[in-house]
């Protein structure tokens, strides 16, 4: 079931009404659990068993970790690691590691046969395994008491708004919300709907239209000018942002309808002035997960700058691999890690997630603009590796861009680029709107002075306009594949 379909909307209405009609918290959790499994089974019911198994293992291991002491405690934690990372390894990474090992052996002259498996990657597996891992790790660290309610825990793991593409929630933040009584807050619900609307518009109007351009440019066999490839890459940067942040906005808005607060996942990342700031604003739930569960356990910044640099790089390489089982994603992670180092090692604090990006002024200074553009350029360089199918294709695209953008004649090729006016218009519209509203968690937050008739006109224009310009083909959310 995809968020941007009428099927999901009807499902949501039914669950919403039933949820608030129920008198007790347990019944509400039971309903959310059932609804979440229906939502997940819509893709493939068999994978519900996998999620249920992961839930049961971590619920049980959580109890064991809590009561055990000494080395036994650590062993129980390893059970959780092996179970969750084993699932990920089998479904997501097995073929990658086998193929890479065979390639490495061939390189040193040893012939080996590749025995890969034809497995379908269960949707959302990377997200819910990380969420359940956070539960056992937090208990191990003494930061969380294990829940005694399997129902609460199962509802926490499978909560449908964020099940298949996050935000990845910490048990210590989300689980207590399932263990306490929720009350309906009309203002929260209204703002939740607005956030959902904004997420849907980003996805169907911007991301899906840009996807057509990106697929055409990245999918062609023809030799394209570097300027057209650059245009395709910029389009991809906005496609993936609108696709993923759109999904997150719908998920967060949807959860608010049920009185549940999810973490913010995006905070206007393309207005960042350096790469360290980008990662405080982009996929925040994943970057903080890696910070807390990988970077800090590795030693963080505790043992001096060389160790800090090594830990940052390692964390980003693993983060790249989390996105997908290919060397392209590892390199994508590596580029991001390297790009963060100058700021991270300088020790400057920089802007945080909740700070207004690029300052509060309407018009930024030239230095701010230059920093934003430079940071965006580095992100685009990394996006090439994220989007291209192979390493050689990525290298070809980067080298063609670098060699062509200095030649004015090459810019003429841009006039033949697909949907240039439409794509540029959509990107500029998005940037302008987000810039003007960047103090708010999402742009559809209006001053109370703006009356309901005007607000409703704006919502209607966004909704019907978004539907009208959305392309007539189904483009799945990009992060479903992870």
């Amino acid at each position: 079931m995809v968020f941007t379909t009428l099927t999901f909307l009807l499902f949501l209405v039914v669950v919403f009404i039933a949820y608030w009609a129920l008198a007790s918290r347990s019944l509400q959790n039971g309903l959310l659990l059932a609804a979440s499994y229906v939502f997940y089974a819509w893709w493939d019911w068999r994978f519900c068993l996998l999620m249920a198994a992961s839930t049961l293992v971590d619920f049980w291991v959580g109890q064991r970790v809590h009561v055990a002491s000494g080395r036994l405690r650590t062993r129980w934690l390893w059970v959780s690691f092996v179970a969750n990372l084993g699932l990920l390894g089998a479904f997501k990474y097995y073929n990658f590691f086998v193929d890479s090992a065979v390639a490495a052996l061939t390189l040193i002259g040893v012939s080996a046969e590749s025995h890969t498996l034809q497995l379908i990657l269960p949707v959302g597996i990377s997200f819910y395994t990380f969420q359940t891992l956070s539960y056992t790790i937090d208990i191990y660290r003494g930061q969380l008491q294990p829940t005694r309610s399997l129902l609460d825990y199962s509802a926490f793991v499978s909560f449908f708004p964020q099940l298949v593409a996050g935000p990845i929630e910490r048990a210590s933040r989300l689980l207590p919300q399932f263990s306490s009584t929720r009350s309906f807050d009309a203002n929260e619900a209204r703002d939740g709907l607005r956030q959902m609307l904004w997420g849907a518009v980003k996805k169907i109007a911007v991301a899906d239209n840009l996807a057509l351009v990106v697929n055409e440019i990245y999918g062609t066999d023809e030799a394209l000018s570097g300027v057209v490839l650059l245009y395709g890459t910029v389009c991809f940067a906005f496609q993936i942002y609108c696709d993923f942040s759109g999904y997150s906005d719908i998920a967060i808005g949807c959860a608010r309808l049920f009185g549940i607060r999810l973490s913010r996942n995006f905070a206007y990342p393309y207005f960042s002035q350096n790469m360290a700031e980008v990662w405080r604003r982009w996929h925040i739930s994943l970057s903080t997960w890696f910070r807390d569960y990988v970077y800090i356990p590795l030693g963080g910044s505790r043992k001096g700058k060389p160790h800090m640099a090594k830990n940052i790089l390692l964390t980003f390489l693993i983060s790249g691999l989390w996105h997908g089982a290919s060397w392209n994603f590892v390199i994508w992670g590596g580029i991001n890690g390297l790009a963060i180092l100058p700021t991270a090692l300088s020790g400057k604090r920089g802007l945080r997630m909740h700070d207004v990006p690029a300052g509060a002024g309407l018009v930024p200074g030239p230095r701010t603009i230059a920093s934003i553009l430079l940071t965006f350029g580095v992100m685009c360089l990394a996006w090439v590796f994220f989007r291209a199918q192979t390493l050689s294709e990525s290298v070809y695209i980067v080298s063609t861009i670098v060699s062509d953008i200095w030649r004015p004649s090459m810019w003429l090729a841009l006039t033949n680029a697909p949907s240039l006016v439409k794509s540029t218009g959509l990107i500029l519209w998005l940037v302008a709107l987000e810039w003007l509203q960047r103090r708010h968690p999402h742009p559809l937050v209006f001053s109370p002075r703006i009356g309901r008739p005007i607000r409703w006109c704006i919502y209607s224009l966004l909704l019907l306009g978004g539907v009208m310009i959305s392309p007539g083909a189904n483009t799945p959310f990009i992060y479903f594949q992870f």
Partner: protein
Amino acid sequence: MGTQDNTDYEGHRSRTKGLQAFIRDALGFLVLQCLVLAAVLTQYPVAPDDYLSAMDSKTSLLQDGNGGRLVLVGGSNMAFGLSCDQLRDGTGREVVNLGLHAGVGLNVMLRQAESGIGTGDVVVVSLEYEHFDRRLGEELWPTLVEHQGIESDWLSWDDGAALLDNVRYYLSGALRRTALSVAGRYTGPNALYRASSFDRQGCIVPDVLESPEDVSSRRYFGGSYSGLRLNWALAQLSHFAENMKDKGATVVFVHPPTLESAYKPAQVGLEAIHKRLLENGFTVLSKPEEAVLPDRLFYDTEYHLGPEGQQRRTAWLIAHLAEQAGLRD
């Protein structure tokens, strides 16, 4: 205790009020959207000569006739791939070409054919390969409904879910067409894809095929083949073949015309489909490679032939029907 109860009661009442107000607002907004949509769509331009409106006339042609005919079932590879006159002259049978568009989906195609098959009919099925690879259909159903070219019992519950999933696309298309119409820029169906481009038997009139396009970059299943949809399609075809047998009709399969330049990248997938068709007991008149034709014989897609290609494929079909299905040459 009494004070606590009162506070809880007041809290509950205020929450219920808040919920009611929220639902009222949400419903109000929804009704507003429906009204705006309805108002906008009153300007929707119906195109009477739309390509898909031919489905209704093709179904009538099938249902009005008697048995003993040659009935062609498939997507546009049938519409653009054969000459009806040549087939009729070569087989001595009346021809009913139901071929229209792969996008109507396998289920609808087969139900349409079942609605009028008679005793002694020979049914030639030729399916675009994408039917074996992914779900097709839901994109075109609203247009078929608009032209009364589809009957409700041709759709299953599963199709209903697909329809719901696609409502946004239907609205998107309808709104765009309305906007073009209001702006005076809607020109109707293009010159080729019109219901009036079909002859009386359901084949495309060669006269309209004036401007062939370069199709050499076209590929089948985008170059890869997943095989996930194959079992579903084979089950549908088996069910159809049994129904036809009960009605006293004969069913044979032929592969669609295949671009020479696109055959190699798709060969493994196409051969896998062929193998499974044979394993399921279907009579297949050819191997996939026998359906390969030079690129120059194609018209505008990887399944549409120009006049010369149509003649070659028709002659080939007549010969194979005589040889393997017992129809006279």
